[in-house]
């Protein structure tokens, strides 16, 4: 028995070392963002001799970090709010209505999950131009409604089926109907699945690259963090210390959010993926 326990501890230590090795690239990124140019060039794996926080202030000013952060936030919030709102009401109605039309509409809504974005990207760009949605953070946020809806609908639809119909009926008797029934009675019951969708979509929209590249890359006032990091590294190919700083600054918000929501994230991925 004792040797079995000792074996477990050795095994656990092995796993911890493995996970540290796994995260080592991120560690190297952080320490090199705090080094001077010559230090990065002489030895990448050494710890910084002194902390060069001026890298951060330089990149902060150069890419106008607060502005980019605001852009990302606007896009993510508009996209997310729209996805949640339109998908939840539609999925609820479709799950509650048993008819051919209802099934057909549901199929039309989830089918796009099979369409690769590259197959329609040019047309989306053309359409966005015609609708005056391009080169605007708002416009991009609105486009995400459609792109995020199929998966959200799929997850909501599956979940609503498990919410008893009696709840609707008793609420109707109490005088609630239509939107007020949905928002006051049903929507609060969907809280756990809404959290899941929030997490999946925030990670996706915040980090998305190709759609923002096509839609809002034209001006610094509409760029996102990932786009800025991409162009920044393009211009500073040999100034790795600045490049690493830009990387850290672009990913920091996601890491902070992850640390706060870690438990929900893992649960959310499971719910979204296994049911989805």
């Amino acid at each position, binding site marked *: 028995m004792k040797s079995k326990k000792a074996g477990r501890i050795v095994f656990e230590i092995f796993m911890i070392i493995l996970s540290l090795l796994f995260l080592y690239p991120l560690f190297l990124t952080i320490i090199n963002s705090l080094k001077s140019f010559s230090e990065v060039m002489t030895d990448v794996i050494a710890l910084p001799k002194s902390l060069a926080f001026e890298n951060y202030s330089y990149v902060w000013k150069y890419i106008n970090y607060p502005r980019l952060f605001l852009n990302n936030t606007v896009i993510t919030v508009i996209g997310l709010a729209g996805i949640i709102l339109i998908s939840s009401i539609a999925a609820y109605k479709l799950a509650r209505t048993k008819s051919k039309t209802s099934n057909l509409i549901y199929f039309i809504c989830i089918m796009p999950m099979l369409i690769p974005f590259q197959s329609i990207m040019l047309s989306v760009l053309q*359409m966005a131009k015609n609708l005056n949605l391009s080169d605007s953070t708002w416009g991009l946020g609105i486009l995400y409604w459609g792109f995020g809806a199929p998966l959200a609908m799929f997850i909501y639809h599956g979940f609503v089926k498990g919410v008893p119909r009696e709840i609707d009926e008793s609420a109707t008797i109490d005088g609630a109907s239509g939107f007020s029934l949905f928002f006051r009675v049903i929507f609060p019951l969907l809280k756990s699945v809404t959290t899941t969708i929030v997490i999946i979509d925030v990670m996706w929209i915040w980090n998305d690259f190709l759609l923002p590249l096509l839609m809002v890359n034209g001006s610094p006032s509409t760029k996102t963090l990932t786009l800025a990091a991409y162009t920044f590294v393009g211009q500073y190919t040999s100034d790795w210390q600045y490049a690493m700083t830009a990387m850290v600054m672009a990913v920091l918000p996601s890491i902070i959010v992850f640390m706060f929501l870690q438990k929900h994230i893992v649960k959310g991925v499971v719910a979204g993926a296994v049911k989805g």
Partner: protein
Amino acid sequence: MFKLGRKWAERLEFGAFTLPVLISIIAVFYYPFMLTIRYSLTKWNGISKNPQFVGLDNFKQIFSGDANFLNASWFTIKYAILYIVLVNVLAILLALVLDMKMKSTTWLRAAFFIPYILSLVIVGFIWKFIFMQGFESLGASTGWGIFKLSWLGEPNLAFISVLLVSIWQSVGFYLVIYIAGLQSVPEDMKEAAKVDGAGPVRRFFSITLPLLAPSITISVFMALTNSIKVFDVILSLTGGGPGGTTYSVAYDIYRDTFQNNLYGYGTAKALILFVAVLIITVIQLTIFKRREVEA
């Protein structure tokens, strides 16, 4: 009169609930998809006002031998197969370990998941830095030959690099799906097999793996759709090099459309990609669904 009124009221409500999502989805998927079909039949540089109708010429040209598209397809097929197999096998192995009760389990799960929350473009750049600068220092301090190879400069190694980086970024995601799957395998079944004298390997293949089938279906589906569309990580890691050996189909479409301004031609390739994705995913889902068993 009253009845007709109620029916219309119901229809109105149905419309009010479902139209917003329908309009959004039609606007970003179906309408652009129709446009894609139209553009694919034209020759268009994106500047002239009217695309010139050329019928099926684009498709004829692609199928009669477009070297770029052929190479990109070959790259994507190799990449997709290896990615799907490796990421799923690794994720299952890790999930088996992290399903055990250890003090650090929560921390370990989070650690393997962290790369997944980073944008793929940034992951590509981080690894480019590691391959180009970091490996030099690691080689100097360890003396291992593996760090002295040109991981982004030699075609075969560049392919492996793209593969490794993608797996590094996403293995945590599949890991979580498999952990969830493992938790739904009933303990008493494993116990019963143990009593019957089945060893750990036999127990895994005869009990755990078959019951893990729904998780495998969904993971393979996700790995498949994601690997066919691989783009961001290549853009920042190798830029398609060395010598154009790491262009994926998605990247080739992007390059034709937006860098070479061959709007019609690029769109025709995009349409071929769609048909391929559709056929492959439908086949995959049918085969995998058939193999699933109930616990």
